[in-house]
């Protein structure tokens, strides 16, 4: 096989291995911040799922929370009605979210960017209203509580300090991430990038563009649903905001902060976003919103490609300087 057509290099790099070892070390280094750390991993997984859709396939979406919220509510409702086994709950939530993604993909994938943004936004708002109205099942505005999540493997109870929750979350997030990594390094992932760059040419060389997009949207939906289910099981609470507009908007912001199109961008962006939020909103929640807004404006104006893009540019400039010197 010639070099030009070879698949992307799928070997694990040292930096990646170090990254995942570091997430494991968090358990020992920050034992009192495990709840926040779990939130970061869950939101990171959610962002990775958006990265598949946006960063790789180029589908813009303002309503990715639709699948996250579906997963959260399915896991929550199961756990509330006597099915508290976490792993099967996770599986059911992923399946339900994938179903929602599959059905809505036929609506969301039509039209151009502006239509897509509006349709995805509309779908998530519809689900929000549906959850709001179905108060018998979802608890409506008050949220869904009184969940009975059983011990993991029947052995490890979910403790108040979030130790089990963190390890459980880390394991699930890592496994799903590996799956996503496998997908983007496959021929299928390569064809997605082709579609992002030019759907017409991909169609011309015989790639089933629409089917590929439906598949990746459904896959990403399942991942988002698993992330939502993790949130429901580890916090034992589901509020209406899991389907809200700001969840989708914040997610986009995180992904752009971390840089779209390299999978780790979602995790890095979520970590930066949530840590900054927890530090700054301790001062004043209103100020946090202001600084967040300013940050996005600056990122869009100055640092295209997010942190990763900025680092690449800086290193490119340094490399250039070295060559000249």
């Amino acid at each position: 096989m010639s070099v030009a057509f070879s698949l992307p290099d799928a070997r694990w790099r040292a930096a990646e291995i170090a990254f995942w070892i570091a997430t494991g070390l968090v358990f020992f280094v920050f034992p009192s911040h495990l709840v926040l750390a779990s939130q970061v991993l869950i939101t990171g997984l959610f962002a990775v799922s958006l990265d598949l859709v946006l960063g790789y396939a180029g589908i813009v979406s303002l309503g990715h929370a639709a699948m996250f919220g579906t997963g959260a509510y399915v896991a929550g409702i199961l756990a509330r009605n006597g099915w508290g086994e976490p792993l099967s709950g996770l599986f059911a939530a992923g399946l339900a979210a994938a179903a929602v993604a599959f059905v809505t993909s036929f609506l969301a994938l039509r039209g151009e960017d502006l239509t897509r943004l509006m349709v995805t936004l509309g779908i998530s708002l519809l689900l929000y209203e549906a959850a709001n109205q179905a108060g018998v099942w979802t608890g409506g505005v008050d949220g869904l509580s009184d969940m009975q999540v059983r011990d993991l493997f029947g052995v490890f109870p979910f403790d108040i300090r979030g130790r089990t929750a963190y390890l459980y979350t880390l394991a699930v997030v890592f496994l799903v991430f590996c799956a996503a990594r496998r997908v983007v390094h496959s021929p299928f992932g390569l064809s997605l990038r082709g579609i992002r760059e030019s759907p017409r040419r991909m169609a011309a060389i015989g790639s089933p563009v629409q089917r590929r997009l439906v598949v990746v949207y459904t896959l990403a939906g399942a991942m988002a649903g698993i992330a939502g289910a993790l949130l429901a099981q580890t916090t034992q609470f589901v509020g209406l905001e899991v389907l809200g507009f700001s969840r989708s908007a914040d997610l986009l912001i995180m992904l752009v902060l971390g840089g779209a199109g390299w999978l780790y961008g979602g995790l890095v962006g979520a970590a930066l976003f949530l840590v900054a939020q927890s530090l700054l909103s301790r001062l004043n929640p209103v100020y946090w919103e202001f600084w967040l807004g300013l940050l996005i404006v600056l990122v869009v104006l100055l640092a295209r490609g997010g942190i990763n893009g900025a680092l690449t540019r800086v290193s490119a400039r340094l490399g250039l300087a070295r060559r000249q010197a």
Partner: protein
Amino acid sequence: MLSALPGVLFDGVAYGSLLFLISIGLSVTLGLMNFINLAHGAFAMVGGYACVVATLRYGLPFGVALVVAFAVAAIAGGVLERVLYRRLYGRSPLDQVLFTIGLTFMSIAAATWVFGSGQQPVRLPDTLLGQTRILGVDVGIYRLFLIAIVFALASGLALLVTRTRFGARIRASVDDARTAAGLGIDVERVFSVTFTLGSGLAGLGGALGIDVLGLDPTFPLKYMVYFLLVVVVGGAGTIVGTLCAAMVLGIFDVAGKYYVPWAGAFVIYALMVALLLLFPRGLLRRIR
């Protein structure tokens, strides 16, 4: 049920005319530069707060406060266009969406900081309060006033666009910005002026709408969907299309809340998805 229909229709038209007033600027800027401005509602909010400050703090009459609201929002829009928006033309929709979400968040935080998070009161002049009877239907005088103002403004805008030289430049730029520029039209200037005018109209709408839509710092997010919807359904860059879409949405929203209150905002969102899928390029484009 049916006996309430004329009243519901009337309230729907009043609501729709507000939506039109606020959205028309967004429609023209989207049509002109393909710029997705999610922060458009923030200009309406600026107008609303300007009106509140003018009437309650400085005791100006309501009519003068409306002019102040228009002016403040127009200046804010004009300055932001010059300083920030201009850099984003031609960038990807995603960049534009993110950028304007950022602006929206900042405006919400700033409004909370200055005015607090509560609903703002508005004091309408006595002559606009109360009800009157037209053709056997009880209608609020203020809503009648709203409809009258908006229809006057809409006719004015239609005249501006169809009968003046400047209007011809706008139409040419919306149709094809590159060709228009090639013919010597200063498209950037046309855009600046329409952006300023559109922001001013949004501000006016925000001020007029305090009594109907309410006014608090979450205003830009709460009504964002409505404004976008009017524009996308109406087809970007057309006055008649925007007016039709605003009326349809206004009437459906009010009727939905009246006849099927349990469905909440469901009606409007379902309508949005359905209309977008049926008319991806706007209501009028399809008819044409």
